């Protein structure tokens, strides 16, 4: 059999294969380049960026949980201007599309960040984080209310010509309602899921472990919730989906693809295996060959039957 087609398209972003990185777990790109050739990824999604620099939350910012981690980084980032000055030149040297994850406290913030990045060039798309549970203002609220999610989406869409992927929170009663609202508002694609809201307590100090009390749960533990979210959203809206949440192996990635994701993002697994993305790309290709599937797009949503 010939080499199967691995290329996918996420709302206008052309990816040579369906594997990208989950924002916040892959820095701005160079951190993992000692272990993998970034140019072999389908796309790179970089750390959440805001209008102004953010210091982030107090430490500890991470705690391990059964098959998962809780994090409360708090969107530490140097601000959009710094990103444009220091990282965009690097992005321009890459042959893979770079998607910048953006956050804000207000709808205007989102729009301004989007506008600046749009003007900077060297970026293939924006991922709008309306779901980070780690910031006090905005963040969470936008993602849990369909109307506000739509408002942010529309604002970003009108501020930037770049493809806009909106990242949804699983911490809602009905994720399809948010997906539908965001689709209506003009999103080009959806990313799901962000982390689950969780916490851990130190029984010796009798205090919450994380400096900011609550944090976001990620890693293999959340995979069943994420696959379910992709399955539900695939049924509800027509937009391409980047699936994520606990993906560590090609088998995990294929579960998401079969549930309805056109691409997958690898997050926490990078910490465990810095070559996870590469192993997953190779494993997906192997599966396609072994099963005589010519194009990975044929598998997208295939678990729904006909």
């Amino acid at each position, binding site marked *: 059999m010939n080499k199967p087609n691995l290329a996918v398209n996420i709302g206008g972003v052309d990816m040579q294969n369906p594997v990208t990185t989950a924002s*916040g*777990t*892959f*820095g701005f790109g160079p*951190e*993992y380049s*000692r*272990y993998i050739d970034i140019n072999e990824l389908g796309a790179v999604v970089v*750390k959440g960026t805001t209008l102004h620099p953010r*210091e*982030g939350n107090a*430490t*500890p*910012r*991470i*705690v*391990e949980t*059964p*098959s*998962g*981690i809780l*994090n409360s*980084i708090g969107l*530490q980032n140097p601000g959009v201007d710094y990103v444009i000055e220091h990282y965009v030149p690097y992005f321009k040297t890459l042959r893979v599309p770079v998607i910048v994850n953006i956050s804000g406290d207000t709808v205007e913030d989102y729009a301004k960040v989007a506008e600046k990045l749009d003007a900077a060039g060297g970026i293939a798309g924006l991922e709008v984080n309306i779901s980070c549970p780690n910031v006090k203002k905005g963040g969470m609220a936008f993602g849990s209310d369909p109307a506000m999610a739509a408002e942010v989406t529309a604002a970003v869409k009108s501020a930037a010509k770049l493809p806009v992927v909106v990242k949804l929170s699983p911490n809602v009663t009905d994720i399809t309602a948010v997906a539908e609202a965001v689709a209506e508002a003009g999103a080009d694609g959806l990313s799901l899921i962000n982390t689950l809201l969780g916490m851990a307590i130190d029984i010796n100090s009798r205090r919450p472990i994380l400096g900011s009390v609550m944090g976001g749960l990620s*890693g*293999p*533990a959340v995979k069943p919730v994420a696959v379910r979210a992709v399955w539900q959203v695939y049924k509800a809206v027509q937009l391409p989906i980047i699936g994520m949440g606990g993906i*560590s192996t090609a088998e995990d990635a294929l579960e998401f693809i079969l549930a309805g994701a056109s691409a997958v993002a690898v997050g*926490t697994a*990078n*910490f*465990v*295996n*810095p*070559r996870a993305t590469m192993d997953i790309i190779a494993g997906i290709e192997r599966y396609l060959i072994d099963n005589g599937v010519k194009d990975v797009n044929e598998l997208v949503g295939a678990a729904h039957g006909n």
Partner: protein
Amino acid sequence: MSQLLKAKVTTHRQISSGYYLLEFSGAELAETARPGQFVHVKCSRTTDPLLRRPVSIHDVNKDRGTVRLLYRVAGRGTELLSVKEPGERLDVMGPLGNGFQLPDPGEKVAVVAGGIGVAPLFFLLRQVAAAGNDVKVFVGARSCRDLLAVDDIKGLGVEIQLATDDGSAGHRGPVTELLARGLKNIDRIYTCGPAAMMKAVAGLAREYNIPTQVSLEERMGCGVGACLACTCKIKTPGGSSYKRVCADGPVFNAQEVAWE
């Protein structure tokens, strides 16, 4: 250049109750590692416990192409590590982190270790002793059972003073009391140990205006600077900012650290 390897465990033994010395093969790692750097170790075969564990490079043997770790069983990860048999494979990433900046020729050096904090300092000591610098070593611990690598340090032919909280060996009391008396003519201090001890060392160092490097610990995710989990507060002209222990550290200038 940091590597990802499945290294073969060559020797592994308990050296004191709850403390282990593990040696593995890794020629390139042994060749390129600097004192103060660490490796990131996967302790389990499954997704629980999930994360790697940072462990300092205790020593390397370039001739035999081996790397040594000295560690304490602190929880589930290190417990799983402790049952690895010689011949088994160890999934390690490294070397990671910045490492210590070595002393200038002729500088008189004090090295202050608290408990398992001696782990990264032995590799440093060996290089500093080999470079011919004058070295005084201060090792403190809870009790004599927690005084580690003492014979190895003596083997380097350097002066060593011991302190224990319970007086079971050496001075009874904090190791910083010994340091305070031994600071004369010291040009440079290196320290690793409990935060309270390092803070006290930093205090003495400021008093005597001695450049001091501390090796910090923080819970880690990636170990390579990508996740921003392991930050510590570093003083800046304008106030403070969060630096990454894994990538900007683990070694920092003691006077820059915003001690709690």
